[in-house]
């Protein structure tokens, strides 16, 4: 705070302004810590509310349970249908958005002219701002009937359909982070590669992609986290059946969809309520782990280019 060369200037300022400055510094410090506090509070809140389910049903019993009949006389609270459903939706989403997103990133970062690049980046940012309900409605009217006829299925409300839309939703996350990673690759590497006689395309896949690989990996991870947590679209499109899906082309329920769909009508403080919080806890742990992993990888890449 008080470095020697600034001392003279500081003393000259009115006391009032100095006080204001220190208050402001404190406030900013607090906001910095707030994020951590909020995260901790969320964890505590989820755990407290899930406590009843964990003690009465058992966390492991829920995670490995195969039946989801929450409102029956003898309810069973097995998360497995929702867990497997979430995994299928995420696999489809990532399988769609990874190649598309990385290809788009390569084009935007390495080949596009300045104007096209600005335009594309702006439009991708706009994509991120489309509310998920809107995409869900588009999915219901455009995708659901067509998926049914294209693939000759019984119904278009499948994990696959939801995965397609979630994949599109995860694209902006993936592209903007992967683009940052490729942008961070020093241009010396590119010019060096070109000087050695590589074409631009060779430069991309021999030099730029390997150098940015950890950043791109992190982008894919964050997009995965985004896909797992997406709620509205999967609630509207995945079909929410109780079976444990063995392929993406059947109706499946997902963890976020189950929580969102059932929370409104449960007895508050009841067992079903608590079980939904336990499911939220599992979901939170999974997305937290994925984002943490992505962050560690990103940080590693940053360190690499800081030298």
């Amino acid at each position: 705070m008080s470095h020697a060369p600034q001392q003279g200037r500081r003393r000259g300022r009115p006391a009032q302004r100095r006080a204001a400055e220190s208050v402001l510094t404190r406030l900013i410090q607090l906001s910095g810590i707030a994020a951590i506090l909020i995260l901790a509070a969320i964890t505590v809140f989820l755990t407290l509310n899930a406590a009843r389910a964990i003690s009465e049903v058992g966390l492991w019993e829920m995670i490995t349970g195969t039946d989801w009949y929450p409102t029956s006389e003898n309810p069973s609270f097995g998360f497995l249908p929702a867990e497997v459903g979430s995994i299928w939706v995420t696999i489809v989403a990532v399988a769609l958005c990874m190649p598309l997103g990385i290809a788009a990133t390569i084009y935007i970062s390495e080949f596009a002219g300045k104007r096209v690049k600005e335009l594309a980046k702006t439009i991708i940012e706009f994509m991120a701002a489309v509310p998920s309900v809107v995409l869900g409605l588009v999915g219901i009217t455009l995708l659901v009937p067509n998926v049914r006829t294209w693939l000759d299925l019984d119904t278009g409300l499948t994990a696959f359909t939801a995965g397609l839309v979630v994949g599109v939703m995860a694209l902006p996350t993936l592209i903007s982070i992967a683009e940052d990673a490729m942008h961070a690759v020093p241009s010396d590497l590119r010019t060096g590669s070109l000087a050695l006689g590589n074409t631009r395309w060779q430069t991309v896949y021999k030099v730029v992609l390997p150098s940015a690989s950890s950043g791109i990996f992190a982008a894919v991870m964050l997009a995965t986290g985004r896909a797992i947590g997406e709620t509205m679209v999967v609630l509207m499109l995945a079909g929410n059946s109780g079976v444990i899906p063995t392929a993406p082309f059947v109706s499946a329920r997902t963890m976020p969809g189950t929580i969102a769909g059932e929370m409104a009508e449960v007895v508050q403080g009841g067992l079903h309520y608590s079980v939904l919080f336990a499911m939220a806890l599992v979901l939170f742990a999974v997305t937290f782990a994925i984002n943490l992993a992505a962050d560690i990888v990103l940080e590693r890449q940053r360190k690499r280019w800081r030298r």
Partner: protein
Amino acid sequence: MKKWIALALTVALALTLVGCGGTTEPTDAAQEPGAGSELTGAINVEGSDTMVNLSQAWAEVFQTQNPGVMISLKGGGSGTGIAALINGTVDFANASREMKPEELTQAQGKGVTPVETEVAKDGIAVVVNPANPVTGLTMDQLGKVYRGEITNWKDVGGPDKAIVLLSRDSSSGTYEYFKEEVVGKELEYAKEAKLLPSTQAIIDETKGNPEAIGYVGLGYVTPDVKVLEIDGKAASVEGALDGSYVLSRGLYMYSNGEPADVMKAFIDWILSPEGQKVVEDQGFVPLAQ
């Protein structure tokens, strides 16, 4: 550069929206004061999403007749409404199901005595795609279909196609009613049943899928779907009223203790022929007078 593109896109979007607007005329008619009512007060209502439109319609008419009364209304679900009643934050909880024993215990613990008033009935229609040749099912067949014991339309007189089961999700009062009446209290829905988040989602899927079967409130039936006869009786408000059509359930409003003052006036008016007329207008089944 980037800023300009963003601005241009925003302007384009704004213009599109303005273009969609059309003409909106102010509606003064609803603001006319009622015939010399002196009721004043505020009523908070929260709960069932099924009942939101109905409650809104009641509130509008009642407030027009009693300009001194303010009714605020929130959806969120029956469970949410009942929890709010137990916590003392609302006057009425709307519920499309009866209170559960667990909730009654909670209420007693907090010194709240919930009083139930049945305010309307909701007929449930079983719907299929218009292309489906099946015109009716018996209650027995319907139960077997929803338990997953019949999985092909050919077993109930239709084509050789798999049945795509549609249901509301377990948070819905309709889901629980249907489970008790059709599936069986001790039995379970087939795991293959798709639990959709809204009635509209069921209509949408049935409209586009010739193999689908679903259930919706009578008020939500559209010409895009075909309503099945149950035990040979067509689903209709009249049928539900005289009891010949079996699938109908009660809609409730819960208060803490017997409603008094403004609340009593409101609920009495809801139960009056005028209030029940609104029920019918909204596509629900009025109570037998």
